């Protein structure tokens, strides 16, 4: 707002408003003081790097620093999109994400439904507890475990393949198998953990609904279809929105720990590419441009999906 355009009256109300906001803050000064350290952390470590994003539009030069390096416009973005490896990376990211969504998204829902139908309490608890176990170990260890199980010489899978007369498969270096392994081992590690939140949603369904359905003679499958699943829909929708926002996150931790140059062609995703180009080859500006592109698309996707869900009605289905 231009200072000159404000009439005297407006200015006094503006001042009064400012005063009152200031006074209100002053009344809460102790609370603001408590908020201060946390906000400093967030400003420094979350917003701080956003300042460095400008090097995506510059030719970063260590001597000149972030601010001193010269502007080059969209050079790095153009370079990315005119680059064959970039297209491969984009394709891999999307494909792996889509496979994960297709197989990995329904898996915890199905597991929650399966666990929910178990009558024996002890078995239910054992099944649940064991199913989350792999979630607690890091991908470094999990990758070691996967490599061990799939080993062509001593792994259990190849043992069975040999037993039925199939030649051992070098799973970890075979481009035809690598994505399948990513998706399958991802489900192995996270399905139990993913089901926790769905089971919590199921446990909040009123038991009377089931009783009434039983009186009406509904089978288990019918109860699942007409009571359990519809009750989970708002939650399913929220989790789907969140995973749509992460469509360009094809799972850095897992791929980074499992891939090797022999399968780069099918497994190199934006994040691994940014890591290699940026930190290994020290191509800071280009790598930042690629990362910036990725975060922007991710943010836009979350906003679009959220907007669409809101338009469809029920705010219960949205994120905020």
């Amino acid at each position: 707002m231009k200072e000159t355009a404000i009439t005297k009256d407006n200015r006094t109300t503006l001042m009064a408003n400012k005063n009152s906001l200031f006074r209100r803050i002053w009344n809460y000064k102790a609370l603001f003081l408590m908020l201060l350290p946390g906000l400093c952390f967030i400003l420094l470590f979350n917003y701080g790097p956003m300042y460095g994003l400008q090097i995506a539009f510059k030719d970063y030069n260590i001597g000149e620093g972030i601010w001193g390096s010269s502007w080059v416009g969209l050079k790095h973005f153009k370079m990315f999109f005119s680059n064959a490896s970039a297209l491969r990376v984009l394709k891999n990211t999307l494909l792996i994400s889509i496979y994960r969504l297709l197989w990995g998204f329904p898996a915890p829902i199905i597991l929650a439904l399966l666990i929910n139908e178990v009558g024996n309490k002890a078995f239910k608890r054992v099944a649940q507890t064991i199913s989350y176990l792999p979630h607690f170990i890091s991908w470094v260890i999990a990758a070691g475990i996967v490599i061990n199980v799939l080993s062509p010489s001593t792994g259990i899978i190849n043992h069975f393949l040999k037993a039925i007369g199939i030649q051992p498969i070098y799973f970890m270096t075979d481009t035809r198998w690598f994505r399948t392994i990513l998706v399958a081992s991802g489900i192995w590690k996270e399905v139990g953990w993913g089901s926790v939140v769905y089971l919590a949603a199921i446990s909040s369904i009123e038991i009377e609904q089931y009783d009434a359905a039983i009186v009406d003679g509904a089978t288990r499958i019918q109860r699942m279809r007409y009571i359990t699943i519809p009750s989970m829909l708002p939650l399913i929708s929220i989790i789907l929105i969140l995973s749509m926002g992460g469509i360009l996150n094809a799972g850095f931790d897992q791929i980074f720990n499992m891939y090797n140059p022999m399968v780069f062609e099918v497994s190199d995703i934006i994040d691994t590419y940014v890591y290699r180009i940026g930190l290994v080859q020290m191509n800071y500006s280009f790598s930042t441009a690629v990362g910036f592109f990725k975060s922007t698309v991710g943010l836009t996707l979350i906003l679009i999906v959220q907007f669409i869900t809101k338009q469809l009605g029920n705010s219960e289905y949205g994120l905020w």
Partner: protein
Amino acid sequence: MNRHDSKSDRIVVFIDYILLIILILITLYPFWDLVVLSISPRNEALSSGLRLFTLNPDFQAYKQVFESPEVWRSFYNSIIRVIAGTSISVFFTALTAYPLSKKDLPLNKIITGLILFTMMFSGGLIPGYLLMKSLGILDTLWVLILPGAVGAYNIIIMRNFLRTLPDSLEESAKIDGAKDFTIWWQIVLPLSTPVLATVTLWVAVGHWNAYFDALIYITDRSKYVLPVLLRRILLENQIEMYLPGQADTSGVIVKPTEETVKAATIVISAIPIIMVYPFLQKHFTKGIVLGAVKG
């Protein structure tokens, strides 16, 4: 199974149990296989097949791992990281969440929005790296502790929990003349143990398992944390460099295979998590349910 079940329902339940049993076996076998491999003598480790047990357990591989000073040092660094990182993180997260749980706090929505935005957008890898470099904290413990200390997700979970506490407790303390900070420390925190326990465990396990920040920010070998050492040994095949027993092939004693040593390394590093696991899962579950509450 209950008395209402028809024949078709019983089949459904039967299939359900079978599927879950298969899932349990698939989840557990890879872990079990590693444990057995880690104590298998050389000839058994080299053969393929279903590994259920070994008749001649051989603890050579464990000996080799425990004899490595690098393993002990990185283990020690990891413990320090977990203790220091978790205390700093939980303290400041709880401190930040408290004012935000007050709905009448001026600018609350704007500040919360500012925090939530960090969940959807970030500067990315290189700008983050350059920031740490310019702060001069590369190759120190601080670079592993400070950047993630206060995160949006944990703040929101704590805030949502705090909103369920009755206001009357704080009001009566205020009438008695207590200041905000005292109220937080003496009344609110003791009442928040469920959410504090949850977040503490989340953060602690996060620190224990974190490898990427340590991999990019720490180049000094003496400051390695366990997951980074593991990565070098397991995935980058630098086993000889860190577990030197392996390099000596002239000995008469039959050395454990590389795979056996790797298995022993995994088992050792997974033990702390598996030991606290029953306790963990209770609180983790509580946390994810708390987190699902919208506010």
